[in-house]
């Protein structure tokens, strides 16, 4: 059932131009990051690690949360249009499965984004003429970032389900991204879902380890993920469907 639901969600993405967002946003983010790096070579001397701080700064604050918001909003948009929620809710599919299918697809899209961002990072590093060896922690940053984004997606998906507006999840993602940086700087990174992304991608101090233990990260992110997921499921179960 789950697999068929996921397949249905993927089908909804066809001809949606969502690939446009997936292509443009990371390219812009990487472009600006590299531009900033090249302009501040005097201060940024740690080659790949310095480049990563510039890339991750824009990506974690603005692009990644906004892009996740776009994915979530798009996956609910078709249902919000043309009374389609009535159709979806009357299918013999359990609500947790519907929500999980949507989350899986968003998570898949964020995984693609993360891979793309990784590739762009390597490419822009080479173009900038970096000679040092590529950081071995890169796959780890990307993997942890993917899980943080999935956590964000669970929360943003709730907004996309509850409020019939395309713009709200995107705006909320951006707001969350900015607040996340602030919370991280103040040292509350682990307690705020939108701080987990810069925290896990080590956007401030690129090294192998995070500012917190892996266990704390996993517990916090999984907790927020489950919270968002349950919120989605409970909302859909108990709220009367308003289709229009």
């Amino acid at each position, binding site marked *: 059932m789950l697999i068929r639901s996921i397949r249905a969600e993927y089908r909804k993405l066809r001809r949606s*131009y*969502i690939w446009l967002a997936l292509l*443009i*946003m990371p390219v812009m983010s990487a472009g600006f990051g590299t531009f900033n790096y090249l302009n501040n070579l005097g201060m940024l001397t740690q080659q790949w690690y310095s480049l990563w701080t510039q890339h991750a700064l824009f990506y974690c604050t603005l692009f990644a949360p906004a892009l996740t918001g776009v994915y979530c909003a798009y996956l609910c948009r078709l249902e919000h249009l043309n009374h389609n929620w009535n159709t979806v809710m009357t299918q013999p599919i359990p609500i947790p499965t519907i929500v999980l299918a949507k989350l899986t697809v968003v998570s898949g899209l964020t995984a693609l984004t993360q891979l793309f961002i990784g590739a762009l990072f390597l490419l822009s590093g080479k173009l900038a003429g970096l000679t040092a060896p590529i950081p071995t922690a890169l796959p780890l940053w990307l993997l942890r970032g993917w899980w943080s984004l999935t956590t964000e997606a669970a929360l943003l998906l709730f907004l996309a389900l509850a409020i019939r507006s*395309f713009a*709200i999840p995107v705006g909320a993602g951006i707001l969350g991204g900015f607040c996340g940086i602030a919370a991280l700087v103040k040292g509350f990174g682990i307690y705020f879902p939108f701080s987990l992304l810069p925290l896990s991608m080590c956007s401030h101090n690129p090294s192998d380890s995070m500012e917190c233990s892996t266990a704390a990260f996993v517990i916090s992110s999984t907790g927020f993920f489950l919270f968002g997921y349950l919120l989605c499921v409970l909302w859909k179960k108990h709220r009367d469907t308003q289709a229009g």
Partner: protein
Amino acid sequence: MIALQMEFYKCKRRWLWLPPLLMLAAQMLWGLWSYIDMDARALSQGWADILYSFPLLNAMMTPVVAAVLASRIADIEHKGQTLKLLQTVQSAGSVFDAKFLCAGAYMTVFVALQLATIVIFGVLRGFAGTPPWSRLLEYTVGTLLTTLTILLFQLVLSLLLSNQMIGMIAGLIGALLGLFSLFFPPSFQRFFIWAYYAVLYNTVMDWNETTRIVTYRFTGFAWDGVIGILLFFAAIYIIGRRLFIKKEV
């Protein structure tokens, strides 16, 4: 007039004022936070300083908020497929105008509130001298014109394309262009509507590399930039309105 009234009816209980208000709150927290610790020298250039930092915050935030606002005002018709219905009772042009005026009203109120915040904060904080009204007026003209032009552009996108993703991405790209336009060469800046926050600066920051002291001071206001943004506004209005009227609904 009735068309405009209808637009405000449609906005009822949709909390459209929330995104601009959140932006204002974020700007106040972010922008004004840096003015808590000020010595006599900083206070003496306070007005120039604050008028330097707010356009920067605007350039970063307003394109996204404009995209959200425009999308919500336009998307209501796509969702209900009501454009067809609307155009049996009023002309497409009047729908377009009413929507812009409605969204523009929200943004104008936002700019006014922002100005009030700046003035009240400056006076309370004890910036040197009386508020430089002519400078504040220039700032308001620049901010309002740029914001409304960006809003108009977003509204055209959101009305013409039922896929609201495009508008949102345009808003995000605009926010980045706005931020990075500060580094563009001046002649290049004028090709982007988002860069007009930078074009219409009436302050400059002098950064002395040896002493590491930053000085803010007022400079001339680029009135030709006002003409530039007005031309952009007129072009987007004429083209966007025509495309919307010709659009098959």
